[in-house]
């Protein structure tokens, strides 16, 4: 680290934050100077969001200290953090849609007259003043629901300016902005910097980070990996720092005998979500889809499972063209989907392990009009043993199990359907490291035993570890397909940033 010439606006010292089973932050230290844009990078799960929540007072660190202008502080709540000059601009905007801009900007701190009435004149005047500073062309009395997402973000930023902000944290602010809107946002950020505010800028997008930031810090697996001066580094160095070699996953070098084509997709499109997607999956093969959030991977899976209607293209199962209008059709055709978020989309948390596993095929487990208890328990026992599900009994409510065991229940549920194609979306999201390895081995074993598997993941090591072929997607398009043997981390990063093979070579 360089010698300090200025007082840092914000300094973190040895922050540790643990959750049951996870050490989300393991001694993170870094500092943001007044008047700099400091980018924070890391893969999904590296600890960026947790760090931000600690900064904003939403989480309390287990260890470590936070300094604002070299004064030690504790952040008890988001409001408390804001009062001390640290403001977080959320990735998901948290505005009261039905209130006006001014009411949102001063929410919780509305200026009052006597008897507790709101002082509208002061409120709107003060808000308009801030909006002017931000070059916003809308008025304090506009209803937030009438604004575009970019303008709503400006309202969030305006909130930050109601206090004497020392540090403003932007969490993936451009995720849903157009290019023109980005330019406006960057101007605002540069303006804040010129006023001497320390800015933490979290993003996945290299181009933004290199345009905007003065320095950057990298997190990996909850550890601080170092700070670089942006002008003195390049994407390669940053990527290496982000992904590193220390990860315990092995590359997949297995040689598997491939069977016939189980699934073929030709020219599939779905509105603006993805277009002209073609690929095939053979029996015995794991095909990995890698890309940023919003690249269209999950949407393809949802289309194959009948949750979305494609606008063009054909789907062939074992060479036969099929029409899939609903999950009922997909299941009947032998397509199974382990969804992205198991708690919201995959499991009925209040129901028992057994009932969750047998849910899609319960109609076939009957004797006369009644569900056959014996048949159900037999299926549960079979998949408990096969997947090593650890639960005290089949009666246990799924909500009480660990993330890894919950995921095994979802996978077991779909294996029990004996699918022709198994799609697994983010197989290890929110699962601790030990269980991750188990799930990965399970996916490999399934392929070996003849299943055609699609794995969608935002974690590069995961894709490299489990997939026989990797498809890199960017903004709804397949940029490149790699064989496990030829794929490199650099080329994959380029593919998902939209750089095509010809340019990369």
């Amino acid at each position: 680290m360089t010698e300090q010439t200025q007082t840092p606006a914000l300094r973190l010292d040895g922050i540790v934050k643990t959750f049951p089973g996870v050490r989300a932050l393991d001694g993170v230290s870094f500092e943001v100077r007044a008047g700099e844009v400091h980018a924070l990078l890391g893969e999904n799960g590296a600890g960026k969001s947790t760090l931000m929540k600690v900064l904003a007072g939403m989480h309390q660190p287990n260890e470590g200290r936070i300094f604002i202008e070299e004064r030690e502080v504790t952040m008890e709540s988001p409001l408390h953090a804001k009062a001390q000059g640290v403001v977080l601009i959320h990735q998901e905007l948290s505005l009261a849609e039905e209130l006006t801009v001014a009411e949102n900007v001063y929410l919780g701190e509305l200026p009052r007259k006597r008897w507790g009435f709101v002082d509208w004149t002061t409120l709107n005047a003060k808000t308009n003043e801030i909006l002017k500073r931000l070059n916003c062309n809308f008025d304090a009395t506009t209803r937030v629901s009438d604004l575009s997402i970019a303008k709503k973000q400006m309202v969030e930023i305006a909130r930050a300016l109601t206090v004497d902000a020392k540090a403003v944290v932007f969490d993936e602010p451009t995720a849903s902005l157009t290019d023109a809107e980005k330019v406006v946002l960057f101007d605002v950020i540069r303006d804040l910097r010129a006023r001497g505010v320390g800015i933490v800028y979290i993003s996945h997008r290299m181009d933004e980070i290199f345009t905007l930031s003065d320095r950057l810090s990298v997190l990996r697996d909850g550890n601080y990996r170092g700070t670089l001066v942006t002008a003195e580094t390049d994407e390669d160095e940053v990527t290496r720092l982000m992904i590193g070699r220390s990860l315990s996953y092995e590359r997949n070098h297995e040689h598997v005998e491939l069977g016939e084509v189980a699934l073929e997709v030709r020219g599939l499109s779905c509105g603006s979500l993805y277009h002209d997607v073609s690929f095939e999956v053979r029996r015995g093969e794991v095909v990995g889809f890698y890309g940023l959030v919003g690249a269209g991977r999950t949407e393809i899976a949802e289309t194959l499972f009948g949750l979305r209607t494609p606008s063009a293209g054909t789907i062939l199962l074992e060479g036969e063209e099929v029409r899939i209008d609903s999950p009922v059709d997909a299941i009947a055709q032998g397509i199974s989907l382990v969804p992205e978020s198991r708690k919201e989309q995959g499991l009925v948390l209040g129901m028992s392990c057994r009932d969750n596993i047998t849910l899609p095929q319960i109609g076939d487990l009957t004797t006369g009009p009644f569900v056959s208890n014996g048949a159900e328990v037999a299926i549960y026992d079979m998949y408990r043993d096969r997947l090593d599900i650890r639960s005290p009994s089949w009666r246990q409510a799924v909500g009480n199990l660990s993330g890894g065991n919950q995921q095994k229940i979802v996978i077991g549920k779909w294996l029990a359907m004996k699918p022709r194609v198994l799609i697994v979306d983010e197989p290890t999201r929110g699962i601790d490291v030990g269980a991750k390895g188990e799930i990965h081995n399970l996916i490999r074993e399934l392929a070996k035993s003849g299943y055609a598997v699609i794995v969608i993941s935002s974690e590069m090591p995961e894709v490299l570890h489990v997939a026989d072929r990797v498809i890199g997607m960017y903004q709804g398009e397949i940029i490149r397909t790699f064989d496990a043997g030829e794929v490199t981390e650099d080329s994959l990063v380029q593919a998902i940033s939209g750089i095509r093979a010809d340019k990369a070579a």
Partner: protein
Amino acid sequence: MERLKSNRAGKWLVQNPIWGFIVIIFVFFSLSNEYFFDMRNFQNILVQTSTIGLIALGMTLVMINGNIDLSVGAVVALAASLMVDIQSWEAFSGWGNWQMLPALLAALAAGTALGALNGIIVWKTGVDAFIVTLGAMLGVRGLVFIYTEEQSFFAMNFTFSDIGMSSVGPVPSLAVLFLIATVAVHILLSRTVHGRNTYAVGGNREAAVNAGIRVGPHMVVNFMIVGFFAALAGVTLSSQMGASTPNLGREYELWVITAVVLGGTKLTGGAGSIIGTFGGVLAIGILRNGMNLMQVPAFYVLVILGSILIAVLFLDKQLTRKGAEALKT
């Protein structure tokens, strides 16, 4: 507390606190009132609660689905009016006691059809069941007044009112009917595919869709079941009275929901049981009967019932919450 949870009976009681409550009030009324502990009185309680109880069986399914049906009270009035009116139509005058059959079929069909209508609207429009059935509650009540021209109907065939008062052996027919229906719905909910899907749809609708359950048609079936039971309750009620009035069944939806919720069914869906609902129905019946025997004025009874509803649900929350894991709200 921990000891209570450790043995099987204790566990059952924690899951169904209403039955513990029933034991308490049962003992209390038995000791404090000489007329309460009596076979006849018990039969009375069953007959008095059978109307609410029948509807509560269907309501339990709808509420486990995460829906609600507020139109049941109006359906009671409609079914009762159809039952009493149609059996006196001239077309059936030569049918003897069989003239009750077309009336019964019409009443039950009307209730089931209205349930189907509720369900289809909820399914196809996506409007919340609370709103849809609130509209149905007002609309159906209006239909009853149009149909009856604000008149009460009286059954000319005394056999009809005799049925309401009849007994199977020593047990009143209506109590038998209610008990049989309770067992039937219990089996439906706990042992059939439809029952399992009821929990799945209410517990996590998205997961249910992803598991290939046709959620819309499934919910329609449950609305039809509650409509059927509301109509059946209208029939038994009119039989007890030998008459129907257009105002019959007012506030029944509230009593039914009270009983179901007392029995442990969650308003958000996904959890509940017929054993619990049966307990909720009995608890209300015993409290009303017991306080009546003790000559507590009717309005005080309402105040006490309201307080007990809140107290029991608070207790339930205390028993089932997961200690420090629970979110502060």
